[in-house]
Structure formats: structure tokens, C-alpha cells
């Protein structure tokens, strides 16, 4: 009975046009990379995190935390736009909101997979987050709220698939609120550490939220473009309008985010803490300079802006390229922010401490990152194949 109902359900939601050998090959390919990449992370529990990752006493966090932050922030962005269009309707993005909910879930799973193999004892977390919670800890709130958000979104998605619109809207709203609060706690994790002047301060949580709006919009543009690319269909006008609408949001937030980035850095050079200034210098002319100028600023901010202007928000291919570049820039920006705060020794001047600590991510850290990226790609293809009709149902009205 149940299997029958399930088969019926999938018959209604799946998109048979994607059941091609080529699609299967791609999906399978990503699955293999997920297993290999995240497998490296899982292996760290057997061989010891210290042997697989290049973390040290001086630099306790690195590429994996920044990757986690990137996926979590992107998920928040997608979820917010989806919720806005579900609750208020009327936005052109509403036609693609089901796809956004799915991808928001997938992105947060990418985040969980990354942090799951980053922390040393996740099994203790499952127990003591509940038995011994610390309400003063941002990490505790962040984990709990992201957990709540993903739970809500899964039920919301179930509501969408089964046509229970009320459940979907209510849980979508709760999920989006939880995502925003979790995102703000994620910013708070860094913003509330006076030991790291590069992070410390009230601006960071807002900066993270702005980044969520930017990454979310960029992801909407890119994902919807790809959804039609893989089908080889002509994109309906309604989806083009949705992309245009997301493109507008993306442009606006791109400018806001650039302004915030500019002032954030300038601040350190007009006074304040020496450690903050040295960290900012790491981005401007130090070990993170190429990351910052080439990847974060040129590829992540300037070129996308030029592309958006040239596309006049009409050429979706160009917009999607801008979206992709923004996401690459955002990924590197998360890394620069986290590395910037950690590379500067707190007791500078003693012990002949170097101006900057050395940290280069290990092969296995990169492997986990590739694994998490493949997980998101796999989730995307799977979603389009299994829930394709749910995603496109509103597009043709």
C-alpha cells in the first residue's frame, strides 16, 4: 500500500525527460566523488584529525569551517527568498520557489557534512548538546537553530510535494526565521571574540546576513539556468522573469556587500587594534592578497557587476555566469575572513612569533570541500529528476 502510494507520488513529481543515460552518468559521477571526498573526512575519525587536516594550536580552524559557513550562508539566502515568495507571493521568484526550498535543504546538508567531519567528536555533540546545553554559546544556538531549520524545511518540502500548502507555508516561515537566526548566530560566533580583533564587532552578523542575500540570489540565478540547460528545453518566460527578479536582488546586494567590505577593511587603518590591522593587511598585501584581490574582489565582485550590466538583466546565460562568479568569490571571501582572523598571533612580538602563522589546507581538507560540492551537485540533479514536475508546475501557468 505504502509503496504504491509512494510510487504514485513519484509518478506525479518525477521528470521523465531527465531519465537519460547521460544524466544518470553525471549523477553517478557526483555520487562517487561524494563518497571519495567525504570518505576522506570520515577517515579522519579512524586515522586522527591531526594526521589528515593541517590544523594546529595556533590556527585551530581553516578551510573546512569556511566551507561550512559558505554552504550555511547560501542555504539561508535560498530559504529567505523562498519564504518571501511563499508568504507574500506576488514576487516573480515565486514560480521557482519550490526548487529554492529543495536547494536550501541540499546546501545545509552540504554544510552539515563538512562540519560533521571537521569537529573531532560529533557523537558527543549529539548527546551533550541536549544534556548539557550552554545558552551563552553561539555555537550551541547556531547548531540548534540550523537543526530546527532543516527539520522544518524537510516537512515544508513534504507539504509542497503532497500539496499540503498550509503546512508548507507555516513550516517554511518557521524554517526561514530559524535560518536567519542561525545565520546571525554564525556571525556571532566570530563577532563576539575580543581575542580576534579582525572579527570582533557588531557589524559581522549583518555582514553575514548580507552575504546570505547575495549568495542566495546568485544561487537562484545559477540553479534555474542550469535546470533548463540540463533539460535542453527553452526556458519559459515566467522563469526568465524569475531570474531577472533574482538578478535585480543580486545586483542590489552586490553593491551593498561591496560597500560593507570596503568600510570593513578601511576601518582597521584609521586606528583601533594593531592585530586587526595586521589581519586586514594579510588581505591587502600579505599572504591572502591574491585570494582577496583576484578571487574575492575581481572575480567575485567586479566582473559579475560588469556582466550584470552588460546582460541588462535579460541575457540569462550572462547572469548565470555572474552568479557562478559571485558564488566563487563568496566561497573565497569566507575563507579570507576566517583565515584573516586566525593567521595573526595574539602574542605578537614574543617568541619571535612570525607576523603571520603558516596555514595551507591539506589535501584531505580540499577533498572534503570537493565532496561537499559534489553533494550539492548530486542533490541538484537528483531533485530535478525526482521532483522535476514539482519544481516546474508553477512555471507554465
Amino acid at each position, binding site marked *: 500500500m505504502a509503496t504504491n502510494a509512494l510510487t504514485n507520488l513519484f509518478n506525479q513529481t518525477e521528470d521523465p525527460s531527465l531519465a537519460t543515460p547521460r544524466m544518470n552518468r553525471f549523477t553517478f559521477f557526483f555520487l562517487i566523488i561524494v563518497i571519495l571526498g567525504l570518505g576522506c573526512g570520515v577517515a579522519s575519525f579512524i586515522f586522527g584529525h591531526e594526521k589528515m587536516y593541517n590544523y594546529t594550536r595556533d590556527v585551530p580552524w581553516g578551510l573546512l569551517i569556511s566551507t561550512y559557513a559558505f554552504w550555511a550562508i547560501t542555504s539561508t539566502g535560498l530559504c529567505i527568498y523562498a519564504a518571501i515568495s511563499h508568504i507574500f507571493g506576488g514576487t516573480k521568484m515565486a514560480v521557482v520557489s519550490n526548487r529554492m526550498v529543495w536547494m536550501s535543504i541540499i546546501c545545509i546538508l552540504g554544510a552539515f557534512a563538512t562540519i560533521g567531519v571537521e569537529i573531532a567528536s560529533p557523537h558527543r555533540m549529539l548527546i551533550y548538546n541536549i544534556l548539557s546545553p550552554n545558552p551563552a554559546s553561539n555555537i550551541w544556538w547556531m547548531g540548534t537553530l540550523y537543526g530546527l531549520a532543516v527539520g522544518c524545511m524537510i516537512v515544508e518540502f513534504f507539504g509542497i510535494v503532497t500539496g499540503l500548502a498550509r503546512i508548507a507555508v507555516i513550516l517554511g516561515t518557521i524554517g526561514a526565521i530559524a535560518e536567519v537566526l542561525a545565520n546571525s548566530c554564525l556571525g556571532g560566533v566570530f563577532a563576539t571574540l575580543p*581575542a580576534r580583533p579582525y572579527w570582533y564587532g557588531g557589524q559581522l552578523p549583518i555582514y553575514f546576513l548580507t552575504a546570505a542575500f547575495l549568495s542566495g540570489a546568485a544561487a537562484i540565478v545559477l540553479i534555474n539556468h542550469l535546470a533548463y540547460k540540463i533539460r535542453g528545453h527553452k526556458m519559459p518566460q515566467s522563469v526568465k522573469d524569475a531570474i531577472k527578479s533574482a538578478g535585480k536582488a543580486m545586483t542590489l546586494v552586490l553593491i551593498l556587500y561591496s560597500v560593507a567590505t570596503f568600510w570593513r577593511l578601511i576601518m582597521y587603518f584609521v586606528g583601533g587594534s594593531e592585530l586587526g590591522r595586521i589581519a586586514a593587511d594579510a588581505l591587502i598585501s600579505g599572504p591572502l592578497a591574491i585570494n582577496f584581490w583576484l578571487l574575492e574582489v575581481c572575480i567575485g565582485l567586479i566582473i559579475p557587476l560588469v556582466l550584470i550590466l552588460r546582460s541588462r538583466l535579460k541575457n540569462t546565460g550572462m547572469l548565470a555566469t555572474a552568479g557562478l562568479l559571485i558564488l566563487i568569490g563568496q566561497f573565497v571571501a569566507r575563507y579570507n575572513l576566517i583565515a584573516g582572523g586566525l593567521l595573526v598571533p595574539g602574542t605578537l612580538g614574543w617568541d619571535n612569533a612570525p607576523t603571520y602563522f603558516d596555514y595551507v589546507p591539506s589535501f584531505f581538507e580540499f577533498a572534503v570541500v570537493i565532496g561537499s560540492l559534489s553533494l550539492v551537485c548530486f542533490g541538484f540533479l537528483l531533485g530535478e529528476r525526482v521532483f522535476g514536475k514539482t519544481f516546474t508546475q508553477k512555471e507554465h501557468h
Partner: protein
Amino acid sequence: MDIKALEKEKNEGIDTLPSEERRKFLKMGLTVTGVFLGGTVLSLTSAQKALCVNTVSVIPAAGQYPYNKHYGMIMRQNNCIDCEKCLDACRATNHVPTGHDAWRTTIQERLTTVEGIEKREFRPILCNHCNRPPCVRVCPTKATYKDPETGIVVMDYKKCIGCKTCMAACPYNARYFNHDRYAIDKCNFCLDTRLAEGEKETACAAACPANVRVFGDIKDPSTEIYRLLHEPDNKIWVIRPECGALPNVFYMNA
């Protein structure tokens, strides 16, 4: 001297206050409990309690220490000769693993020039058992906490999920990942290894031949640390006071 009225005064900052005045101020009555430092009066009591008095400049009154014992350490920094006997004693007593940058206390050094002569300066560091410990605040599972009896910041290893937030939060690089325990570890003033056995000193303080490290209950007027902290002529400082962690490890020159 009306201390209450004084508290309401605006902080003039260190630049404007000559050290002559600083001394006078200390002699005026701070023998009670405070340590004057960099233009701010540093609390020796818990931040929680101290905040009740005044959030800007905290002058703890006697009797406001929240812990039965309130352990701290003062370093007579210029006495340190970098013999590292303290480090060996700590490693042996507390089974600190070798490798992976594991240490509970270490000696930092730097070159300074005093009156034209280059001089090597040594500074012992360890966990400051802060009164407002960032590590304790950030820990999601209360795996690290302030022992209510002694004010010592301790670990409950089984609860540590290894998120390493406390390592990022500690201004003093006092925490390390203990691969044997698969949890964060740190100095606990030899709470389990010596104080519990009735010893009065930590292993490092006991091993120091130059009497650099003076350990004791900063609440008890009969202790040497109390005397050193409240001697008006002693210039006392702490590391990175701007982080607001309110450390309980103090420094002076003998």
C-alpha cells in the same frame, strides 16, 4: 575618600595619568582589593559580581569573591631565566603529551634593548583562569567551566565535541587539542594532580628555582600573592587586558 564618587568619574586613560599619581591613588585605599592597571581598575572578583558594583570601572569590595578559594598566580617576570624546570614539572605531573604543540605552560622570549644593551626577556604564560573566560562562554556543551569551589577553569573531557571554538576564543593561546583524550585540554592549576592531594602549590611554581611563579589564594590576606598584589609600590600588569577576560595571572618585576 569617596570611592563611589570616584567610580563615577570619567576614565582619563593611561596617557594622561602620571605614574606618581597612580601610586598615590593606589596608596589611597586600593590596598583593599583592586589592581590599578592601564587606567582601568581590574576586578579580582568574578565579572558577574563585579558588574553589580559598576560596569565601567570595577572595584571589588572585600567579601565579594564568589569562590571559596580564588586561585591566581603572579609572575615576577624579570626573575625568569628560562631554565624550563616549570615546563618539565608540568608535563610530568599532568601527563601533557609531547608533540602537536601540546603544552599547558610555556616560556615566551623576546629581545629588548635596555639603556643601549640588548637583553633577552622571558615571560612564562599559562591559562589565566579568567574571571570572564571567553572559552567558557563559547563552549556549546559546558565541557569547559569555572569550578565553583576554586574559580579554576577546568575541562569535562567527555563533553568536549572538539569544535575548537574555545581555542579561537582564548586570548592567551592556553588551550590545545589532546590527542590521547580526543578533547581540548589546558592548565587547571594542578587541581586534580596536586591541590586535591593537599599540596599548596602548582607543580610549576614548586619547581621554579628563581621563585618567579607565586601561586595562591588571592582572597586570603595571609598569602604571598595577596601581599604582592596589594603592595602599593608594585606595578602589576596582565596580558591583553583589552580583551576584557579579567585574567587571574598577574605580572610584575621583582
